[in-house]
């Protein structure tokens, strides 16, 4: 039985985190009313001209360092010509033969060891608009808010050998891009999209097989699923004695299969040529150095440092680092708070649960580090107990108020006399349970439960247990 190997290359499109578009000053905010963020330039009205957004170029130069890329000394834009209603000029301004970045690599984790994936090139371009098709109408809608949003297309070499490697590559790339605040990589909002080029060949064969392209995948999981499906499909074709035809496919989420969008015969001839409205430009060494000097710590390096500095596991670090804002929040808290493990537990527990329940991203988490530390300190000093802390956490998140505003009412009752009085009331109310305690020590938990209810969670459990023991033993 022939064994096959998979060869994949990924093209990742990321929206650059600029406040304005690539060639005009329109806002890039996501989710505004359709066609509210457009101007004469991004609408391609006659007589208008593009002007390069310097911030986008600077973001691309940040990528250069992170992906170990070479920066082109001279770069230029080109026009990529095709007709589609989401493209008002009839061409997309992109880069063809002189991309701003080339010849880089990143390391990705694999079950065996870290593996190097080469980056062939990365180029700047403008995004297209969005077509909205409505079932049952003879027309479609066009929203051009997204037209002209700066994109960086990062093209890997065909070094990826399995769908799992593709997944790791994307995860690693996303972490880097988020870390450097190059892109928010929000896949639901389309800030990161991926095309997969895939071919198979019998193990040992030197020449490449014919590749197919799967376009517009907007989740890492789809990439893995689509690549697995496509590899298997190609294998079946070859095993049946067929030939792989070059073509462009789409992933059908409902049917869980790749579907042919266009065959080689229908492939576009994009007729690239240099964009005459912009011309070539030089990227100065000064600018490169300026950007290099302002770069934040990269995720892999940060993970290693955090493991050592806070004595936390690699796995926990991975959780923190997956989103830069989470790691930033964690470290901001630790500037004034000395228990990393306690903080980590809260981040993995209450904080994560809160975000999930309210469908929020970490950037929208309502409690600032300063206030969060105050809460943890109250707990640390045993001013409040853990249950009370959790309740105060919820209220802080809800109201934006500081922990102290709630802790007065939640302060632990440690006064012996006061506690003794409440304990007596409990025994009086549920004498049967108190009786059970004599024979069944577990019944004590039920008594404590009643006590907490009566004290609104404020009772100091350790002292209360001792008092219950004394009272029942009497």
């Amino acid at each position, binding site marked *: 039985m022939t064994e096959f190997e998979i060869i994949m290359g990924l093209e990742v499109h990321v929206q650059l985190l600029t406040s304005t578009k690539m060639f005009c000053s329109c806002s890039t905010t996501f989710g505004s009313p359709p066609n509210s963020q457009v101007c004469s330039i991004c609408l*391609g009205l*006659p*007589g208008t001209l593009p002007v390069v957004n310097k911030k986008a170029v600077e973001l691309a130069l940040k990528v250069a360092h992170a992906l170990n890329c070479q920066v082109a000394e001279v770069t230029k834009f080109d*026009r990529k010509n095709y007709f589609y*209603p989401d493209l008002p000029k*009839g*061409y997309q301004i992109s880069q063809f033969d002189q991309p701003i970045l080339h010849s880089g690599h990143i390391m990705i984790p694999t079950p065996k060891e870290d593996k190097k994936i080469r980056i062939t090139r990365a180029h700047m371009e403008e995004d297209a608009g969005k077509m909205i098709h409505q079932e049952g109408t003879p027309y479609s809608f066009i929203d051009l808010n997204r037209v002209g949003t700066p994109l960086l297309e990062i093209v890997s070499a065909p070094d990826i050998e399995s769908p799992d490697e593709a997944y790791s590559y994307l995860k690693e790339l996303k972490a880097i891009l988020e870390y450097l605040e190059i892109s928010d990589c929000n896949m639901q909002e389309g800030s990161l999209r991926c095309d997969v080029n895939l071919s198979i060949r019998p193990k040992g064969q030197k020449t490449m097989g014919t590749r197919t392209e799967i376009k517009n995948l907007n989740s890492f999981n789809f990439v893995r699923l689509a690549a697995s499906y496509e590899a298997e499909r190609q294998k079946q074709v070859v095993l049946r004695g067929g030939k792989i035809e070059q073509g462009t496919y789409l992933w059908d989420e409902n049917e869980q299969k790749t579907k042919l969008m266009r065959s080689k015969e229908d492939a576009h*001839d994009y007729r690239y040529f240099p964009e*005459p409205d912009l011309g070539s430009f030089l990227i100065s060494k000064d600018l490169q150095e300026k950007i290099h000097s302002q770069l934040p710590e990269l995720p892999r390096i940060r993970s290693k440092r955090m493991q050592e500095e806070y004595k936390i596991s690699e796995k926990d670090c991975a959780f923190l680092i997956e989103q830069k804002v989470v790691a930033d929040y964690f470290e901001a808290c630790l500037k004034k708070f000395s228990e990393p493990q306690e903080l980590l537990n809260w981040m993995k527990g209450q904080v994560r649960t809160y975000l999930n329940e309210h469908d929020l991203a970490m950037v929208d988490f309502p409690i600032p580090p300063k206030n969060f530390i105050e809460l943890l300190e109250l707990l640390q000093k045993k001013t409040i107990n853990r249950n009370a802390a959790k309740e105060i956490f919820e209220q802080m998140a809800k109201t934006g108020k500081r922990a102290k505003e709630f802790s007065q009412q939640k302060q632990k009752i440690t006064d012996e006399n006061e506690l003794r009085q409440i304990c007596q009331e409990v025994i009086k109310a549920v004498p049967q349970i108190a009786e059970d305690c004599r024979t069944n020590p577990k019944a004590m938990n039920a008594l404590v439960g009643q006590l907490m209810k009566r004290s609104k969670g404020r009772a100091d459990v350790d002292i209360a247990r001792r008092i219950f023991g004394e009272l029942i033993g009497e």
Partner: protein
Amino acid sequence: MSIPEYSAVKLKELLETKQISALEIARALLDRIKKHDAEVKSFLYIDEDLLLKEAQASDQRRSQGKVRGILEGIPVALKDNICTKGQRTTCASQILPRFFPPYNAHVVEKIQASGGSILGKTNMDEFAMGSSCENSSFFNTHNPWNLNCIPGGSSGGSAAAVTAGFTPLALGSDTGGSVRQPAGLCGVFGLKPTYGRVSRFGLIAYGSSLDQIGTFSRSARDAALLLEVIAGRDQRDSTSVDQPVSSYQEKLLSSLKGKKIGLPQEYFENLDEEMKASIMAAVEVFRSLGVEVEEVSLPHTQYAVAAYYIIATAEASANLARYDGIHYGYRAEINAQNTKVEDLQEIYHESRAQGFGNEVKRRILLGTYALSSGYYDAYYVKALQVRTLIKRDIEKALEKFDVLLTPTSPVSAFPLGEKIEDPLSMYLCDIYTVTFNLSGNPALSVPCGHDKKDLPVGFQLVGKLFKEEEILAFAHQYEKETLVNTLAPIKKA
């Protein structure tokens, strides 16, 4: 003399000495247009009320001592591919019948900021593609020297309007000669500045790496005046260059003694004898002013027209893709088979097939072909290589000479209809002008008399990059010696 006969500089003087008002100028020009433009047909659109209102506002500013700048009270006509805010801008095309730009072109802002006003929009070959103005989808414009003849193109309307005394000044655009060739054929001054000298913001693109806005006037001094207004860097056009704007008017009288003119021999080889004689007479005038004249060779000249028609059409094929019937402009409802247009592909096909004229379609096809995979290297890349060689030729020649002097056009104005069915012979009208679009050098067509048919003849002066003041000085001092009449009588043959 009457108002329409005066140059802009003379009108300025009369305004400044309160001998006339801006309102009188506007009225006099409108009167002449009403009287004669039915025959010349140079204007597509004039907003009379706006013009009169602006003239009154200008007079008021002057009386209050609040003159805006050096064009205060002077009207300028615009080729209809220069965007005017809220005023219809058509490129003389059926595909853009009701486009009211929400912005002014940079040059319009500059004119208004210096006190000038927009007289109206002039006829042109559709999307600036043509050398006779016959590709306008509205009507033909006639040469005021002989109404049976074409005015040249593509800025034929602007050239004819200045020649007929409808306006002292006009702007056109020059991609392969579209300012200089009609200026030559109409016998006025037509200046194409250095590429990057004037912002293209608001100029509807044809061949973006070649397009440059240029001036029409009946004197070199007026050209200097208008260039002073419109030149300079504009952040909205990345190809506009940050070079200081010279005081062109002040330098008109810089001495020519000891300066050198180069005559590129390739430009005189097959030239009509009569035209050659006119131009050589002009050369003698320069000699008499103390200028040294020598022959020079620009060896790659013969490839210029071919390279131009590949680069310009390649860029045009992309620039005109936006007229797709989807976002704005003409959308076909009914197809050629007289049935309703159904799907997206058909909207594209039918809107463009019906909306564009034949010459525009021809050039889009040419450009698309030249950029297609498999042909790209043989055509487009080759043309870019030729462009580099041509640039080097001219750079080298201008190391030795201050200016180059050539004919503007191989022929004088020809009868309407003569070449319209023969695109190749029409393309050859640009043979002497396209080179300097490819190289980017400033070039100016100067009128130098009339041929036996009483049609104007012009020569072209080419300067070093951003040295417009030099060619303007040459033209001005020649003009003073010869006093060629630049105002046409408006007559039938």
